[in-house]
């Protein structure tokens, strides 16, 4: 079935991303926008746009019935859910299909299976995918638990099943510490949650977060598009992503990617998906979860493989057979993405708001800015603080690092406090430069990542500019002739 019109059930940069590919494929687009988003580019960049009014997310971008009625009204053949919002919502997916509209994504059963931590792990065990060794059994007898811990191998993590916030949690380094640590964890868990049941898991020191991009068609083609290294995270949100991962050699890469393909085959997956894995320093890797949608960080994969993942999503959803073969897909060069958040990294990453005066642009080649905002648009508190993704490609990792540093300088987002400066500090950290990263990077190197004071002469240049600009403002406020203030005009 051919897709002629797509309704995009999302906002911001991802809505614009889907519009771009649809335009290239000659597919018409429909977007939705809320009252707060009425000045944002996604509200006017599609062929048709629908106003969702003012209200909560549930009344606007998550209003399933309204979205489906708009799709029917506009004769859209398909709905692209983007990421977040309704992208992994099985109720919505079912409703879409029941209304004879194509859901651009996997089947309901795949979302259900992989969306549940328990069922997905059972399934992974069944098809032979490595899971983090652990004990999740009923028995709470200290001797039984200790035997299980010995089997897992130290260090072992004791975790309260009702846990959260680090309470009832202990890292046990060796067998002789186990019984004491168990007692401590149980007492803490009892006090905090009135439930002292614990589980055991192998504790991985300095784990990396590696993921593999997959896309499958409905004709048995299950392709991978290599890995992404996403270890730099804060509060479980990714901040910097890159591909290839500096941690993988050809052999490990092959094993990891083949494991991911084994999963998509094993569950007969359709469309774009991502397998998230934990990679231990000894190169053992374990399944973490599968994201059954397009990822925020998909552009770096597009930069190194040259494929358009949204195009493949659309082809797969339309039931077409990929002409692309696994052997056609190559990793060339190196790509890095940074997520620009409206937040203050030097103040506990608190979200910031404001009006973007000037986003800026890079004049260099192979720099991509995926951004849902335009100059003079407002950032509100009601949506995700991620305001843009800046992506670069270069032949080498080193080249990409330098290019990113320059690109961040060019793209200033004036008018709003963002994490730009902080991103530069991460990119310049010696451990990051070496490619030696893990998921606790931001926490472990918090001290190194503190704000750097510029040289005194640079500070002086800032002070001088502030004084000049204030001087000028005073003049303008009590000014006579506006035309005299303008420079750069000439008669032609």
């Amino acid at each position, binding site marked *: 079935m051919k897709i002629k019109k797509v309704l995009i059930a999302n906002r911001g940069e991802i809505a614009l991303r889907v519009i771009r590919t649809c335009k290239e494929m000659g597919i018409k687009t429909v977007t939705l926008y809320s009252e707060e988003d009425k000045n944002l580019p996604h509200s006017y960049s599609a062929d048709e746009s629908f106003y969702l009014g003012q209200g909560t997310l549930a009344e606007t971008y998550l209003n399933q019935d309204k979205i489906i009625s708009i799709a029917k009204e506009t004769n859209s053949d398909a709905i692209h859910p983007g990421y977040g919002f309704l992208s992994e919502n099985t109720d919505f997916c079912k409703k879409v299909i029941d209304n004879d509209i194509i859901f651009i994504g996997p089947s309901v059963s795949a979302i259900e299976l992989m969306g549940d931590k328990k069922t997905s792990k059972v399934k992974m065990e069944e098809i032979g995918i490595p899971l983090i060794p652990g004990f999740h059994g009923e028995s709470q007898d200290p001797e039984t638990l200790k035997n299980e811990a010995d089997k897992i191998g130290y260090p072992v993590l004791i975790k309260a099943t009702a846990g959260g916030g680090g309470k009832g949690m202990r890292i046990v380094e060796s067998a002789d510490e186990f019984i004491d640590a168990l007692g401590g964890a149980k007492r803490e868990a009892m006090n905090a949650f009135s439930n002292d049941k614990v589980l055991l898991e192998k504790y991985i020191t300095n784990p990396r977060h590696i993921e593999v991009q997959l896309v499958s068609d409905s004709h048995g083609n299950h392709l991978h598009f290599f890995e992404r290294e996403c270890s730099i995270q804060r509060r479980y949100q990714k901040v910097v992503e890159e591909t290839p991962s500096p941690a993988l050699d050809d052999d490990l890469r092959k094993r990891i990617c083949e494991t991911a393909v084994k999963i998509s085959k094993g569950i007969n997956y359709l469309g774009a998906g991502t397998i998230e894995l934990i990679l231990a320093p000894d190169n053992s890797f374990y399944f973490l979860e599968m994201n059954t949608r397009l990822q925020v960080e998909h552009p770096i994969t597009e930069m190194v493989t040259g494929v358009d993942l949204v195009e493949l999503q659309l082809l797969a959803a339309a039931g077409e057979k990929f002409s692309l073969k696994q052997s056609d897909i190559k990793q060339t060069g190196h790509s890095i993405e940074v997520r620009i958040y409206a937040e203050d990294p030097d103040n506990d990453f608190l979200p910031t708001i*404001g*009006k973007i*005066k*000037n986003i800026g642009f890079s004049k260099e080649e192979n720099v991509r800015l995926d951004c849902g905002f335009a100059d003079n648009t407002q950032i509100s508190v009601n949506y995700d603080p991620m305001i843009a993704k800046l992506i670069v490609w270069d032949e080498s990792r080193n080249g990409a690092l330098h290019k990113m*540093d320059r690109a961040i*300088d060019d793209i*200033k987002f*004036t*008018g709003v*406090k963002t994490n*730009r*400066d902080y991103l*530069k500090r991460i990119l310049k950290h010696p451990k990051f430069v070496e490619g030696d990263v893990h998921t606790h990077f931001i926490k472990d190197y918090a001290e190194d990542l503190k*704000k*750097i004071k*510029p040289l*005194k*002469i*640079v*500070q*002086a*240049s*800032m*002070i*001088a*500019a*502030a*004084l*000049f*600009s*204030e*001087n*000028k*403002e005073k*003049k303008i406020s009590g000014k006579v002739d506006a035309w005299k203030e303008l*420079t*750069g005009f000439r008669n032609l």
Partner: protein
Amino acid sequence: MEKKLLIGENEVSLNIIKLTDTEVNFDFEGEKFSCRLLNKNNSDYLMSINGHSFSVSVTNFENKGMKQIFSKGFEEYIKLFPKAIGSSSKGSAAGSLESPMPGKIFKVLKKAGETVKVGETILILEAMKMEHTIKATKDGCIEEIFFHEGEQVTGGAVLCAIE
């Protein structure tokens, strides 16, 4: 002329020797800087400081008086205090309230545009682990409050203006 300003969280004191449309000379942390403005293009200032060239971008930030400044790949937030220290005694008489000591704005109880009576608390300053209430010195209408809750202030900084 002495001028105080905030660079990020740090309070800095300058001694401005000369300030014109195109030239500023000042002492900053024991060093002399002489700056000449060579060109201005929208928000970008091209200048020469002690013989070195800088292109500096200035954006007035949402907070009153806060400027977002970019230079040599660094991003900073600078706030110039509205009045030069030394000429501040006139301030109170004219309806300005000053911070009695350096501290942090703990709470702002009034908004610009509100009317106040003598003795009404406008804001609370936290300094040396104690709270200091800043009260209206005359009846009138609050013209402007120059700081937000949580902001650092210098001793003598003008906190608000009453008309």
